[in-house]
């Protein structure tokens, strides 16, 4: 195996100019139905420099995907209440109308999904699905769109791309489908790529191919990436910064090395401890007891209290805010206040 120890030191990029590419302040997302209100995201704030990779880590229902979809305003307006400030480059997403968002989606911000099988339209050819995006945003001819599609398939490393342009999604293998979806997302050279667990549904030997590809493309194209995953080791492979989410809040934030190697929040510590590896053989895993809270119920105080091993009276009083543990490494835990 080849390790690239320089990868970490890599991107100083345009980040040095100072203004972050993405700014999210106090984002909340609620899903309203007749029976209940699900508070999926509760006051999330973060920022991201151009060319930087942020991994949002969390278990199912932690609000990580919801946060990302909110950035693109993909939630159905009818049952969703979104509040807070969101900005990507010079687009104030939170103030944009649906019509304005349509120009941004797929061009400035694009997204790749977990299941390539169900995320591509089954009755359109791969080439059509890529060219369609190019034609829509660049207002170019269909022929130019196809030329661009071919170029993109080559870029994402699809073998015999001419033939694949005419293929339907069900005629491709899982890895190729995921590459085709990446090609769709990159078709208009976005400045921000949102990736929703893009490697989770893939086999181990294919997952690593896609991860390496994504990292190469991210560096070559200088994109910023928000990468959602539940897998800490995937984050270790691709992230510059890491945000750990629990029950709709960011509970820890910092550089990937800080968070994974010196976790501060009890939840992050628990996650790391319960991630199985071979040298734990014959030992009991220090699992986090219980299960994540029901997001339909409003909780007083820190939502991790029922599962936490170091609870103080202060924990039940109010929701802890993110505070610096070290320079650039923050955690939301009463133990650090």
């Amino acid at each position, binding site marked *: *195996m*080849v*390790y*690239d*120890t320089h*990868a*970490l030191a890599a991107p100083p990029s345009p980040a040095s100019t100072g203004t972050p590419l993405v700014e999210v302040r106090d984002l909340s997302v609620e899903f309203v139905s007749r029976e209940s209100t699900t508070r999926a995201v509760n006051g999330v704030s973060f920022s991201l420099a151009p060319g930087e990779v942020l991994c949002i880590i969390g*278990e*199912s229902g932690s609000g990580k995907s919801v946060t990302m979809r909110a950035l693109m305003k993909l939630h159905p307006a009818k049952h969703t209440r979104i509040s807070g400030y969101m900005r990507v480059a010079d687009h104030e997403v939170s103030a944009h109308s649906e019509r304005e968002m349509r120009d941004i989606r797929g061009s400035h911000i694009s997204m790749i999904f977990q299941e390539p099988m169900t995320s591509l339209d089954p009755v359109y050819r791969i080439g059509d699905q890529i060219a369609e995006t190019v034609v829509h945003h660049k207002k170019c001819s269909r022929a130019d769109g196809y030329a661009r599609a071919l170029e993109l398939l080559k870029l994402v490393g699809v073998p015999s791309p001419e033939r694949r342009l005419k293929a339907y999604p069900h005629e491709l*293998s*899982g*890895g*190729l489908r995921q590459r085709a979806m990446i090609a769709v997302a990159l078709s208009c050279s976005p400045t921000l790529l949102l990736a929703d667990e893009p490697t989770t549904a893939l*086999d*181990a*030997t*294919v*997952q*690593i*191919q896609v*991860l*390496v590809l994504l*990292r190469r493309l991210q560096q070559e194209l200088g994109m910023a990436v928000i990468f959602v995953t*539940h*897998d*800490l*080791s*995937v984050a*270790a*492979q691709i*992230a510059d910064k890491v945000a750990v989410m629990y029950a709709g809040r960011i509970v820890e934030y910092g550089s*990937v*090395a800080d968070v*994974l*190697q010196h976790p501060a929040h009890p939840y992050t510590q*628990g*996650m*790391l*401890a*319960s*991630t*199985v*590896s*071979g040298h*734990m*053989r*014959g*030992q*009991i*895993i*220090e*699992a*986090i*007891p219980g*299960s*994540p809270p029901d997001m339909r119920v409003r909780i007083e105080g820190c939502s991790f209290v029922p599962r936490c091993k170091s609870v103080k009276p202060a924990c039940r009083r109010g929701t802890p805010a993110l505070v610096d543990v070290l320079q650039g490494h923050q955690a939301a835990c009463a133990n650090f206040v």
Partner: protein
Amino acid sequence: MKPMAERDFANPLPINTADRGGRQQPMLLVQSLKKHFPVKSGLLQRQKGAVRAVDNISFSVLKGETLGIVGESGCGKSTLARLLMHLITADACTLVFDGDPVSEIRGITLRDLRKNMQMVFQDSYSSLNPRLPIRNTIAYGPVVHGMAKSDAERLANDLLNRVGLRSEIYGARYPHELSGGQKQRVNIARALALTPRVLILDEAVSALDKSVEAQVLNLLNELKRDFNLTYLFISHDLNVVQYISDRVLVMYLGQVVEIGPVEEIYGNPRHPYTRALLQSRLSMNPAERVTEPPIGGDPPNPINPPSGCRFRTRCIFAEGVCEASQPTLDAVTGDRHPAACHMTDPMSGHTKAAA
């Protein structure tokens, strides 16, 4: 990390102690297991090929061990589990359970086999009957095997408590009211209700969140010791398999490519596929990033697989001999860590074959 603790229980549950052949007798002996699903096409739907889901597999499971089975999607590991449970009929197979051949005139009947061998399915929406309270789901097996209804329900309550679900709270609940981890505990309790000696766990923790996965793995370890169980643990997660298994079997496209003790497989893999699989594991250390994928491409379609060695299309060491002849697993007899690769057989003619 704490050592495993000895515990005693409020509810001593029955443990199946029907050991026939003694410690040395393998619990399960599988020989030449084969299952091809026909692929029909053309005007008259003639058989044009076959998905070689499980193609001539032999292995044994020792008493009290955990045999891990790893492989990528489509390698036939789930088919293998269903074949062992006789949920689908094999094309060819000799199965010996603790010295008794299965389904033969003088051997153990299918009904008795199923009493002794149970299966835990992957947690999915379909693993539990949505119209049945979970207590009834667990009690179903014992009732079928002639236990009185009230006794079966008492047993179900004991089992629920044993897997960490308080029966008075959860017994009457329906599956949609439970979380993924809780459902998986019910699945385990259901499998235990017939006091089996062998549990086949088919991706039993794969769909769970990491923190819940850890809880269930702990539970499985405890149950194994307390109920004197033998596990067949099927998973695609190499870390979990390494944690729980005593021996590991690696599958590729319906065949076993390597089998051996866990430290041997992980410490000294002999088959190039096993090596690639191990290298595809991601490190938790951000300083150790993979820059070059260990192998390219997807696993090929199991319909009409490549000739010779099935891995040769993705193998960097492939030579003429790999296309011409199929490597066998028992190249070196008596080996406790055989691999189906020409490079491990000095007589194969592969240039890299160990002398």
